[in-house]
């Protein structure tokens, strides 16, 4: 009975049990027991220091905001490099997209997906999410446009120039918010100490610079990933032109 297939099944069973046990631990764990060191300091001090309800967002955009600027710059540099390398190709229709049903339903769903992305960005300091995640969802919409309607569609609606402008202004906004800290005599990217209102924790307008930086990063990531995708999709073009299938 020791065939490879049975061994495979045994492995799958063990994996399922381990995963189930792990999830169960996650359900039953008590989150505030036995936390010491830096983690305890961040959990207890975030509300006082930044006014943000989301500890991760506070760490990302306040305690280590300068690192985040670097991370966002990595994406920016990547987009610039890819766009530079792939820019000289001629643009042609690469596909006809999917069927009529998918095209129509996508048109109905796009506003809701955009609303969801905006809510992830704007609520980044209150709930899980933030600029990187919401920007990715927003870029997903443009990538879905390419998959569903064919690659010539999205470029005709949103020109690369507009996306570049959005991306650059996102980066500029981030640095400008950081400079406010310098102007008021603090460090670069100072949050509450630079005079930004702390607000009430849990409200939309709270957390000082964190929502603003989320919006800046969201602009940068959304436009950047979209540009990245459309720079590379040109390489995969198929020059054959034919009428789209009807069914």
């Amino acid at each position: 009975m020791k065939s490879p297939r049975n061994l495979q099944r045994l492995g799958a069973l063990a994996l399922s049990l381990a995963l189930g046990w792990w999830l169960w631990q996650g359900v039953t764990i008590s989150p505030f027991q036995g936390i010491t060191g830096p983690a305890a300091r961040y959990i207890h001090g975030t509300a006082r220091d930044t006014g943000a309800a989301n500890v991760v967002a506070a760490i990302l955009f306040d305690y280590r905001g300068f690192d985040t600027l670097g991370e966002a710059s990595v994406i920016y540099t990547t987009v610039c490099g890819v766009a530079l390398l792939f820019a000289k190709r001629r643009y042609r229709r690469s596909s006809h997209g999917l069927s009529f049903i998918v095209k129509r339903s996508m048109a109905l769903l796009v506003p809701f997906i955009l609303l969801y992305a905006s809510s992830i960005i704007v609520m980044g300091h209150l709930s899980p999410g933030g600029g990187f995640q919401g920007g990715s969802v927003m870029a997903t919409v443009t990538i879905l446009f390419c998959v569903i309607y064919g690659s010539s569609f999205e470029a005709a609606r949103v020109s690369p120039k507009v996306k570049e402008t959005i991306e650059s202004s996102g980066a500029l906004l981030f640095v400008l918010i950081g400079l406010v800290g310098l102007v008021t005599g603090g460090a670069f990217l100072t949050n509450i100490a630079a005079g930004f209102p702390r607000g009430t924790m849990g409200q939309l307008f709270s957390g000082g610079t964190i929502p603003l930086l989320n919006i800046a990063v969201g602009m940068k990531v959304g436009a950047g990933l979209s540009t990245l995708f459309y720079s590379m999709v040109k390489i995969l073009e198929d020059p054959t032109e034919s009428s789209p299938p009807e069914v």
Partner: protein
Amino acid sequence: MSAMFFGLSTVFMAAGLFFAFASVVGVIRFPDVYTRLHASTKALSGGAMMILAGTAFRAAATGNWPAMVKTLLIAAFLLATNPLASHAIARACYHHGIVPKGTVIDEYAETVRGDRS
């Protein structure tokens, strides 16, 4: 009223679990990609939506109306997107050249070729 909602939610969640389990069995046991797709969509449009309906009833039982509306909206979104994705996958498989197992009459192929116009 509250107890009735509570019971209904339990019934819905049990039905959702049954659908999820049946879809897992279907994905393992069914022979080709189309029947497996048929089974796997039940995990979402049967299982997840039933469980979401159960959650909505449970929220209604505790008088948490905003949570109920949100849950129903999520269910509506799943109802709109899941058939879409399955349809796209099935169509892509067909145009890739995968023939459904045990096909006798293929009217879709005739329509694509234009025989029936």
